[in-house]
């Protein structure tokens, strides 16, 4: 595939206009670490934003960073780390799933897929941290939206629309993000040996307590061994993460332990470093990465997680799964082929509510089934009109989200 990496907005405008003139769609990418995510793009040329890299300004006391979308996650993470700050939405690193270089993806691509992590339930996703952007639309026109301040309702919130649009609306040329101080420390309380539904029940209960548990996950037996700090263990774990100043963490951990003592589960605690490794592995889908199988990501009402997986299994789809977001996020690995699995998974979601995305599968599967959850007719039509308002000739990432655009 021909690849272009324009070095400024003007060059991007020229490329897009030439693509329109030639009726030749463009694949939009950063470092292409997520090229296997979504439907295969129908394009012979790739436009990369990797040359639009670097920090425009970073003001830690203002909690804001403005940068080129081609800046790698490694550069950004290191910079924030030096100042005790982070992206609070803990973007998933797809490197393990797609066998690319860890932290080698760009911030632009993390925004394009609306990346998030285990802290999603408390801190939000990428969508909640994009303050503003500049971009070139599929019409070959530069525009900007938002700003650099936390509170801003001036005009439509196009940052939300851009985030999670998989490069199908416009090509990012600039990003301004909210950053936050890292918690002073963290610990994770583990309950061992619970079944899936019991694990969900514990998480539901914990998330209704005032102890500010910031992440809640349940790993069934068989999903545990791939996580470093749990190496050698086999029993299921239900994990409750507590972050903050040391005294507060210690107190909340003790309170939680006391609260769940009647469950008679065996407890253990992951210290700061182990806790970070644990949630990092869980975020990046390590428990399922090694499976030679398709991987799906399901978002549902938290209490429905375990029932959902059970319904999917009963339909004949074999499934290894674990639960994040207190049960609301299900990572599912299956060897059942995508054509068979997709309708069953989506049928199961019909009663629990939510949606499923096929995250990892070979190109022919991703071309053959809906990678993103199909939408009802009126919503699908509205979505197509919005796509048209940015990219009427369907030049950008054609086919990536939907076959028809």
């Amino acid at each position, binding site marked *: 595939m021909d690849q272009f990496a324009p070095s400024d907005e003007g060059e991007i405008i020229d490329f897009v*206009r*030439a693509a*329109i*003139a*030639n009726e*030749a769609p463009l694949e939009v990418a950063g470092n292409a670490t997520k090229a296997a995510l979504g439907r295969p793009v129908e394009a012979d040329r790739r436009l990369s934003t990797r040359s639009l890299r670097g920090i425009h300004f970073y*003001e830690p*006391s*203002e909690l*804001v960073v403005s940068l080129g979308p081609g800046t790698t996650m490694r550069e950004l993470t290191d910079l924030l780390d030096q100042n005790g700050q982070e992206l609070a939405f803990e973007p998933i690193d797809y490197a393990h799933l797609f066998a690319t270089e860890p932290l080698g993806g760009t911030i632009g691509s993390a925004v394009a897929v609306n990346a*998030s992590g285990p802290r*999603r*339930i408390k801190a939000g*996703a990428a*969508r*909640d941290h994009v303050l503003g952007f500049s971009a070139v639309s599929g*019409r070959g*026109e530069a*525009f900007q*939206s938002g*700003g*650099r*301040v*936390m*509170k801003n*309702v*001036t*005009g439509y919130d*196009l940052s*939300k629309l851009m985030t*999670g649009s998989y490069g199908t609306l416009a090509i990012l040329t600039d990003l301004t993000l909210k950053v936050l*101080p890292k918690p002073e420390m963290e610990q994770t309380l583990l309950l061992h040996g619970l079944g899936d539904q019991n694990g969900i029940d514990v998480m539901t209960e914990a*998330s*209704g*307590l*005032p*102890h*500010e548990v910031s992440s809640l996950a349940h790993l069934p037996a068989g999903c545990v061994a791939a996580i470093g700090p749990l190496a050698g263990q086999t029993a299921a774990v239900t994990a409750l993460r507590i972050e*903050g100043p040391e005294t*507060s963490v210690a107190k909340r951990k003790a309170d939680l332990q006391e609260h769940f003592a009647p469950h008679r589960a065996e407890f253990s605690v992951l210290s700061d470093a182990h806790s970070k490794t644990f949630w990092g592995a869980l975020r990046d889908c390590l428990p399922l990465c090694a499976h030679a199988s398709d991987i799906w990501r399901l*978002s*549902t*009402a938290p209490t429905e997680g375990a029932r959902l997986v059970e319904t999917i299994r009963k339909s004949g789809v074999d499934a290894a799964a674990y639960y994040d977001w207190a049960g*609301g*996020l299900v990572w599912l690995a299956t060897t059942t082929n995508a054509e068979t699995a997709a309708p069953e998974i989506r049928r199961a979601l019909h009663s629990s509510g*939510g*949606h499923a*995305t096929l995250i990892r599968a070979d190109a022919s599967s991703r071309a053959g089934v809906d990678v*993103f*959850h199909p*939408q*009802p007719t009126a*919503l699908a039509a*509205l*979505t197509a*009109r*919005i796509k048209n*308002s940015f990219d*009427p*000739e369907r030049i950008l990432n054609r086919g990536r989200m939907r076959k028809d655009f």
Partner: protein
Amino acid sequence: MALTMPKPEQEILANRDLLIRRLREILPAESVIDDEIERRAYECDALTMYRQLPLVVVLPETVPQVSAIMALAAEMNVKVVPRGAGTSLSGGSLPLGDGILLGMSKFNKVLDIDYPNRAARVQPGVTNLAITKAVEHRGFYYAPDPSSQIACSIGGNVGENSGGVHCLKYGLTTNNLLGLQIVLMGGEIIELGGKHLDSEGYDLIGLMTGSEGLLGVITEVTVRILQKPQTARGLLLGFPTLDDGGNCVADIIAAGIIPGGLEMMDNMAIIAADDFQPCGYPRDAESLVICELDGTASEVEHLIERVSAIARDNNATDIRVAQTEAERLQFWAGRKNAFPAVGAIGPDYLCMDGTIPRKQLSYVLSEMRALAKRHNLRVANVFHAGDGNLHPLILYDASINGEIEKAEAFGADILRLCVKVGGVLTGEHGVGVEKRDLMHTMFSEADLEQQQRVKCAFDPNHRLNPGKVFPTLHRCAELGHMHVHKGKVPFPDLPRF
């Protein structure tokens, strides 16, 4: 008033009787208001300086009724202005003389509270505070808390992406929604989200939030409810200068502390609030910071000490820590009453809503003082200091000829100043009609055209709340035009592959 609204369309005015007859086929007679005196009640929202009698007012109470009204409006090519509780400070629900005013006040039911999934599904006319009231007996609350929370509706909050004093830590409306049901112009009903996180396609919940009633009518809202923090404690900090107060705010954030609330008031606002309802504010302080820390008891104790130390380092002359819940509420009482308090010394005031990068606070305040002198008007300041959202209250006397125009000109200068230092026109009140004509100070024509193209995807004939947000209305056909025709080569000067 200097405001220009879209010219009433004669064809719509001529069809008024037919429209009312058709509306009465959809709604019970008492829900279609055509009497002039009754329509008067809807002639303005909380931006009272602009008034317009609506063509007709309708008060539906079911989603099929809303859908039928929208379908009829599209069929008859009539404009529609949605209205929640009418508390908009930017004129978001200012009626049109040739438009149906669609009042959502009868949608006032809490439909479903799901504690295990921490979600509440409510109708859009439910007030912001009523959501918290419905769940607080179980230790939950709904986080965004605009000052008007006792009156404003959640549907209006979604339309405006409302904030409040707690949004530094807990986010705005947009960060606290799980699902929406909307009705499009034409009557289509669209469900977005549910009890799960993140949308399955484009983030239309995010787009709808803050769209000021220009894209669709909100008929149902699912919000996230949160567990109340174990403890909330307040600090009241007085400073000898505005700079000291501003620096203290910056240092708190720089130290990695994100308080539940971080508010600031200047001397005129302090005196006005304390006169209105004595709340023990230090009357000689040039700036006052209210800092609320919430979380577990041990964490809050630890943070109170750190914030007190930061305040001392910034020359605080007054450091008080609330010892009881009653005292914490008293700290807030003055701030929460600041608007009516300033109203009492007014006699009228215009509330502005710019946001600036925090570090620009002292510069903006000193410039604002110079502007006040130039315009010969007084201004009191209250801010959501933590997130740089200013609420300058411009005092004027509407009974004096020309004073409204003077206040408006002063307000526009303040907003231009906000944009100049890297800020924005509105932090939480919305553009509406109030800031519409200033949009070009922040956006280029291309930026605004792209926003209007999004509008066209929802409402191609500009029937829904036209005249708000955008200074000029472009026809959708014209905006979609790209000089691309099959068989013709667009951009002929560009190189071919």
